[in-house]
């Protein structure tokens, strides 16, 4: 019992240590350059949490399908469809911020359902299907509401979505619900079995098709949720064409990959993604404080991402070389001791 608590505490410290180290490094850099810290005011905290919730939800959405070997490139377009349709319906009905969030997530679920259904029926490669669905969803988003998308700025009742307490609550709900779904529910057990081997899971009686569609639906809900907070932050979400919506998928890969790695430290992927998102958003906030342009920020963030994936991919090799060097040092120390003993005799 005591050992379990100690193990849990150790894992928790390891997990929290990553964003903490990132914050410390950024704090030192920003303070030495500008004389101010990364987080100075409540506005900074609000900015951090607003970006955090969108990147957390989007990163969890990407990982839902990606963990089973399905790279869904249409998630950006699903986000647009969810927010533009759901947001406009909720605003027309005067449902306020919570209504916008719920209806957007419902439309996101429908988009995920449609994509998942087409996937299991046509069985074409997920990435290829993603390209086709992106074209279709972007076209639909562009066609409705006179190509205006959705504007949440200045709408009555929407200000709750910018409320820091609401955002923190939403973060907790997202992490708790996804944790339950992927770690504790029957869907989660089946999902992980499929993640291990689709063929074995199917032979064991798991309905891989239902689970796949459910994964697409969950991903759709999560990206739509992310989209609502992105829209609230920027005020409006204008529809795009030419597969530009994919940029959201790519830009949220870093928190997802970093989060997956942190998740291995605490055996909890969802909490890992949360910490990964906190870490990446702290870097972005720090770079903004340094006054760098968004392009320079992108260069720095993606270079860090590159360094991280180089390390993550080769950590086995690094550990092997470290162990070899330690063995060599041990052997030389042994030989030196032997020589010393011989000299003493």
């Amino acid at each position, binding site marked *: 019992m005591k050992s379990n608590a100690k193990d849990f505490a150790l894992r928790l410290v390891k997990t929290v240590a990553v964003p903490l180290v990132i914050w410390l490094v950024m704090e030192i850099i920003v303070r030495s350059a500008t004389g101010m810290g990364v987080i100075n005011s409540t506005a900074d905290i609000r900015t951090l949490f607003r970006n955090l919730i969108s990147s957390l939800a989007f990163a969890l959405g990407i990982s839902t399908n990606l963990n089973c070997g*399905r790279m869904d490139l249409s998630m950006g377009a699903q986000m647009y469809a969810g927010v533009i349709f759901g947001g406009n319906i909720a605003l027309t009905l005067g449902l306020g911020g919570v209504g916008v969030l719920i209806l957007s997530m419902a439309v996101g679920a429908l988009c995920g359902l449609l994509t998942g259904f087409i996937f299991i029926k046509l069985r074409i*490669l997920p990435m*290829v299907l993603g390209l086709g669905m992106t074209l279709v969803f972007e076209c639909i988003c562009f066609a409705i509401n006179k190509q205006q998308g959705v504007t949440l700025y200045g709408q009555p009742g929407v200000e709750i979505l910018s409320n820091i307490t609401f955002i923190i609550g939403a973060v907790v709900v997202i992490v708790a619900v996804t944790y339950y779904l992927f770690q504790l529910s029957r869907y989660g057990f089946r999902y992980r079995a499929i993640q291990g081997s689709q063929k074995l899971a199917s032979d064991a009686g798991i309905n891989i098709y239902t689970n796949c569609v459910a994964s697409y639906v969950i991903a759709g809900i999560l990206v739509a949720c992310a989209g609502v907070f992105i829209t609230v932050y920027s005020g409006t979400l204008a529809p795009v064409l030419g597969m530009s919506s994919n940029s959201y998928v790519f830009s949220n890969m870093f928190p997802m990959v970093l989060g997956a790695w942190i998740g291995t430290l605490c055996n909890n992927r969802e909490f890992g993604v949360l910490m990964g998102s906190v870490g990446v958003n702290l870097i972005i906030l720090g770079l903004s404080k340094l006054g760098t*342009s968004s392009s*320079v920020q*992108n260069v720095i963030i993606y270079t860090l*991402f590159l360094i991280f994936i180089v390390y993550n*991919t080769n950590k086995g090799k690094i550990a092997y070389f470290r162990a070899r060097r330690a063995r060599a040092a041990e052997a030389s120390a042994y030989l030196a001791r032997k020589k010393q003993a011989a000299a003493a005799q």
Partner: protein
Amino acid sequence: MSAASGMAIQKQSPKLTLADRIDIIKNKRFFPLAFPLAMLAVLVVLFAVLTGGQFLQGSVVKNIFNQSFIVGTMATAVAFIYSTGNIDFSVGNVMGLACVFGALAYEVTESMPVMIAVTLVGGIALMMCNCTLCIACHIKPAMVAIVAMSIYSALCTVLVGADPIRVDYQASKALEGGFRYGTFILYFLVCLILYHRTAIGRKLRFIGGNETCAVQTGINTTKAQIIAFVFAGVGVGLAGVYQTIRTTSVAQTVGSGMGMDVMLATVLGGMSIFGGTKSNVYAGLIGAITVTVLNTGLLMLGVSSTMIQGVRGVIFLLLVFLNSERQKTLPSRQQF
């Protein structure tokens, strides 16, 4: 007696269903080439009929060819990478940054040959950068592509700034004729021969089909991948040159989103983005022409550009479904 037993065997043999017959046709060797070509021909005939022959006018055909030129060149180039089972959708941004390098070199030297050389070398160098990350650092090419497209795109913005870099209009238009057609035909023929008539192409397809098996038969996958990226680099560099001389200026958004267009064209041309034995080098070009034919035809029929994208998506999914083999379980592949 023998005739009667023959009849009995014939009666006992299972009857082929329509799906079985379609599968047999799909597995024929000629199918990967014939199907996209047939679809292209059907589209051309359809639009020719619907537009009352206007679709076949010289200016329209020339415009279709010009529009599909850049994506077609890049799609031909990435066939080398795709056939090994790897995906690289950063080619659009690689081309963009190569264009920026070329345009900056032109700004300094005011020499078109220098611009062409720098764009070509830039394309090859950037693709080799991606290749090094894949081979030396063992990162999956799709992940490299995501990082590379973001970094290259940001670098384009930083290097170009708000105003596009201009290239001499007259000199560019002079190069649009013979130089462009000549270099493209030469590059395409070299790719065609290398890919379908030499050991290089066979090795690349073998790696895409079964990498473990390819390694066990003594194929050096690292060397093959380097060759694939070099040839892709040449093609991307050439596409960069064509882009610069077509627009006579290089803006900060040059090449963005083109990587996806290339992937779309490749798949539409009948090639699997996961490579293998059925890969071919001409799929990208056929796909690029098909996309342009579809866009131009629908525009001539009065369909709005927004709707064209949706129609393109539906037709794309339909063609891919018809051209691919339906798997018994769900298709998946760890790309990251």
